[in-house]
């Protein structure tokens, strides 16, 4: 039995495997134009807004934006760890804390949409109406199934604020009717659709959502359902590798008339999803 031949063949085979593996990896990472990493929310991605908006930005600047879509809490955490150049999210309280803690440079308001409560068309809790707090009180009183994001997202933070404002102590009232999915907006809507449960959703994701089953909007139009989006550059002073110039270009573009008009133009089935409301800036971009 020859024992040297197999060894040579095998060593050759293993070396070939390594070379093949590394060439497979490098071919897919070579030749990149300037890119920036944007930590954003599932609502901007899953509603289809980014598909419309990002190519326009690339056309204007030549910069390739790479979006990682997470819940707002997770997206801010990505910025805090320095894994993103720009954060584009919707939870004003958390965003202001992010900037105050020195992780973001400056928070700029970009656009808004609104939250809606969706629920079974037959509305067993009789929550239908314009008043979000009254709607939630009725859902809790009826112990009607409610699907909560429970993932520290902007939508989850807003939901918790509404329960509190409605005077409902979830700690005490929480029961089998209150389902914490711990997942994104889409998966939570899938759960709500399957259980015929109520849920708080941003209108953008709802409009783009296809697996609605028996669900429909039951509460909308309340002033308090306003949902503001903000954008900020991750602080290069904290994370020196942040692509400051390219990132700032994105921030500047989103709040510029060009960026704002792209946002205004995006609609699904004739319904506008996001309403640009960046303030005209008194001072030119800093730095």
């Amino acid at each position: 039995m020859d024992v040297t031949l197999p060894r040579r063949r095998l060593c050759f085979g293993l070396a070939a495997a390594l070379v093949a593996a590394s060439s497979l990896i490098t071919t897919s990472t070579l030749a990149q134009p300037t890119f920036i990493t944007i930590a954003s929310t599932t609502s901007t991605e899953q509603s289809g807004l980014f598909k419309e908006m990002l190519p326009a930005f690339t056309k204007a600047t030549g910069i390739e934006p790479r979006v990682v879509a997470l819940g707002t809490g997770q997206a801010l955490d990505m910025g805090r760890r320095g894994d993103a150049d720009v954060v584009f999210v919707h939870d004003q309280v958390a965003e202001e804390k992010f900037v105050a803690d020195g992780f973001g440079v400056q928070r700029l308001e970009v656009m808004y949409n609104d939250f809606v409560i969706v629920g079974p068309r037959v509305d067993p809790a009789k929550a239908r109406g314009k008043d979000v707090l009254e709607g939630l009180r009725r859902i809790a009183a009826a112990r009607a199934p409610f699907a909560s994001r429970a993932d520290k997202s902007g939508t989850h933070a807003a939901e918790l604020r509404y329960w509190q404002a409605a005077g409902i102590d979830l700690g005490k009232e929480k029961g089998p009717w209150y389902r914490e999915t711990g997942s994104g907006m889409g998966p939570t809507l899938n759960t709500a659709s399957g259980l015929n449960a109520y849920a708080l959703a941003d209108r953008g994701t709802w409009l783009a959502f296809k697996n609605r089953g028996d669900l429909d909007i039951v509460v909308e139009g309340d002033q308090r359902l306003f949902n503001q989006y903000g954008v900020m550059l991750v602080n290069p002073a904290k994370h020196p590798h942040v692509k400051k110039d390219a990132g700032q270009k994105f921030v500047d573009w989103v709040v510029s008339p060009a960026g704002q008009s792209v946002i205004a133009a995006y609609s699904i089935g004739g319904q506008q999803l996001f309403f640009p409301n960046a303030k005209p800036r008194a001072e030119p971009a800093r730095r």
Partner: protein
Amino acid sequence: MFEIFASLQAAWALVNGADPALARIVALSLELSLAAALLGAAIGLPLGALVAVGRFPGRRAVIVALNALLGLPSVVVGLLVYLMLSRAGPLGSWGLLFTPTAIVMAQSLLVAPIVAALARQTCEDAWRDYEEQLTSLGVSRARAVPTLLWDARYSLLTTVLAGFGRAASEVGAVMIVGGNIDGVTRVMTTAIALETSKGDLPLALALGFVLILVVLVVNAAAYGLREWSVRRHG
């Protein structure tokens, strides 16, 4: 039932339509999973064979650990790789997070134990058959490793294919370390997860059928290669 049928039709349309975006996603999936399977094999095969023939203290514990790693939770691997590659982590300066390379790293970590555990079993069985012969030839245990691997190459091909299957079907770790970035790190599985999130279940399932087709083609190719090789070399 009707929905599944509709998905099959949609899958057929996707394959027929040759949508360039889909083609890119399929190509990336294939490329990264093959790279991970090869890397995992390069680590796992020698490791498994060494454990098979080796006699060292704690060998049983190593075997149990290897077998247990077959059930390694992918989310845990994803988190570990994420924390290593994050800018705040030890390898942060490499800037690899959210790149295809990060995906291959996570996938290889999942594939290597599978290959090692299965190769260990295969080589141990082969060792039982050849031990006497090889020792009488004066071959040391370490030097018997390549002989065993070569001799068992056809069974080990299946092992590597199992590793490829794990890599190609992986979603949890790939989502965490890749970030599912459109055009950069979006692979079949994360695309399926995204369409599921959007509530487009028929499209998600259609993509799933395409993925199954890809895995089937790879396995068919490996089988063909094996047949050809057996006929040629015996």
